[in-house]
């Protein structure tokens, strides 16, 4: 059954980018102010879920040929990896550090290892949420 969803599709094209931008914005707002990997990841995955709803699963998977279970696994490796990384440098497990670097375009920028941890969290959230949604939709 094909419903007439021209409006939904057209709106989605714009809205998905707004949601994705907002997700990235939330992600980078993290670790010192409200935001971070978990919320950013949820928003990012909501954009993906919207795509799955509007188009069918096959179309989206052609566009984004990613196994989301593996995305979640990569996320966990990132998150645990930053913890283990601290151990390799002789600090306590999960120790995070930061430094101010002079980058060409951005000028003096504060780079923190916690961002890597947050990347892990975000990927895990995206992978898990999308896997859940896909599994629920497959079974019917």
């Amino acid at each position: 059954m094909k419903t007439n969803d021209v409006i939904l599709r057209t709106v989605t094209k714009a809205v998905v980018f707004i949601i994705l931008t907002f997700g990235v914005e939330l992600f980078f707002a993290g670790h010192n102010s409200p935001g971070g990997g978990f919320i950013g990841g949820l928003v990012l995955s909501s954009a993906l879920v919207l795509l799955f709803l509007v188009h069918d699963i096959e179309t989206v998977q052609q566009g984004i040929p990613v196994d989301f279970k593996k995305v979640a696994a990569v996320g966990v490796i990132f998150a645990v990896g930053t913890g283990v990384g601290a151990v390799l440098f002789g600090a306590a497990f999960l120790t995070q550090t930061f430094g101010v670097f002079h980058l060409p375009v951005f000028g003096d920028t504060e780079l923190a290892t916690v961002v890597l941890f947050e990347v892990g969290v975000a990927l895990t959230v995206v992978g898990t949420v999308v896997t859940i949604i896909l599994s629920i939709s497959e079974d019917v």
Partner: protein
Amino acid sequence: MNNIVVLPMVIPLLAGVILIFLRSFVKVQRVLSLLAVIATGVVSISILNAIQSEGILRLDFGGWLPPYGILFVADSFSVLLVLTTAIVSTIILLYAFSTIGATRENMYFYSFVLFLIGGVNGSFLTGDLFNLFVCFEVMLLASYVLITLGGRKVQLVESIKYVVINVLSSWFFLLGIAYLYGSVGTLNMAHLSERIAEVGQGPLLTTISLIFLIVFSLKSGLLLYFWLPGSYSAPPTAIAALFGALLTKVGIYAMFRTFTLIFYHEPSITHTLIGVMAALTMIGGSIGAIAYKDVRQIVTYNVVITIGFILVGLAVSTEVAIMGSIYYLVHDMIIKALLFLLAGTMIYLTGTSRIEEMSGLIRNYPALGWLFFLTTLSLAGIPPLSGFIGKLYVGQGAVEAGSYTLLAIAFLSSMFVLYSLLQIFMNAFWGETIISEDEETPLQNRLLLPCVVLGIGTIALGIGAESIAAYVSDAATTLMNPQIYIDAVMNGNR
């Protein structure tokens, strides 16, 4: 700073994640998962020895000092259990290699076993109540997957019960944590203990402690065990053995930790209640164990009886009784794994789980029969097997504390354990042999070997009880004197 303390949780977790990428390489998965659990065992031995020389170890995550940060604390009690977990899960993995089947191996079976072990070890090691909740969830989520993996009808039926009851108890857990945080403003276990000792454990805090009692009773199956026999008999043997050996023990551990470290000021209320619940558990478990004719059911009711027995030690709360409980915990992890594997092997060989449909198996499979007999004796607590020393100390502790009723029920329940298992033995192994030699399913060595190793384990633990005596008595001393734990966490700046 002792980064080694976190390894028993991180090794299985990382290995489990890596295995997700190796989904189609079953052989690699087997080797890696085995290596991961063995590595965990080796690490825990070295932690255990470090504790004997340096005292309790702790690791503040990210360098945030307690009570502000989250930390792992390794004392003899927790690391003994981590070590036993590693040994038992190694052997169960060996059994799983030949029995679990290619479909499950392809569906991330080993990853989830490793996540389960990571969660169990995290629960044993954490020094923060909220982190305990998180580790419980890691363990439970993995167990939800393992119990449903394969999707047979009986598994799905039982898993609904199992998931609902555990989600409910996790909710209560969260509720208790919220109340506790609201009333004393901290969740670090040592800090909690300090603050509760300062303000006194009034009626409000005692009520909160009862919420934790309900939560851990649901998780460990103390009195609230109605979900346990069903869900432990549904999954395949290797998974059931893993559950029977490990999962309830985590609840028991949490109960010991909270009621010796945090809520130990009102024993007349909390510990009496634990005693009553333990007695009822043993009675209920005994009735269940002799009422059924199904091997799986009998075995799972034996799990229930043991839970009651171990908590007798906590209920009387003398140092000797606690020592007995710790011995018995270690013994039970090994022997329950063995019992589940033997029961599963019997079902595999005969194709039925009803004991009246088995007969004379000892002629077909003598080694299996004698192993089962050995298990029966060990569970009943016959010296020199490993069950004896634990029972002796729990009994001695109960006499010291004058709780003769508990003592009587505890030892009567041992009789019922013996009776229920002898019933299996006499029905299934004695009698006329009904499987002729041409019809018998061959018992491969790879099925028998893990059982033999566990059997040797129970003998070794019984005869060599002396060798772990130092660790056990150190663990009991730490449990009975919360100040040792508090000092190690709050004052030592290692």
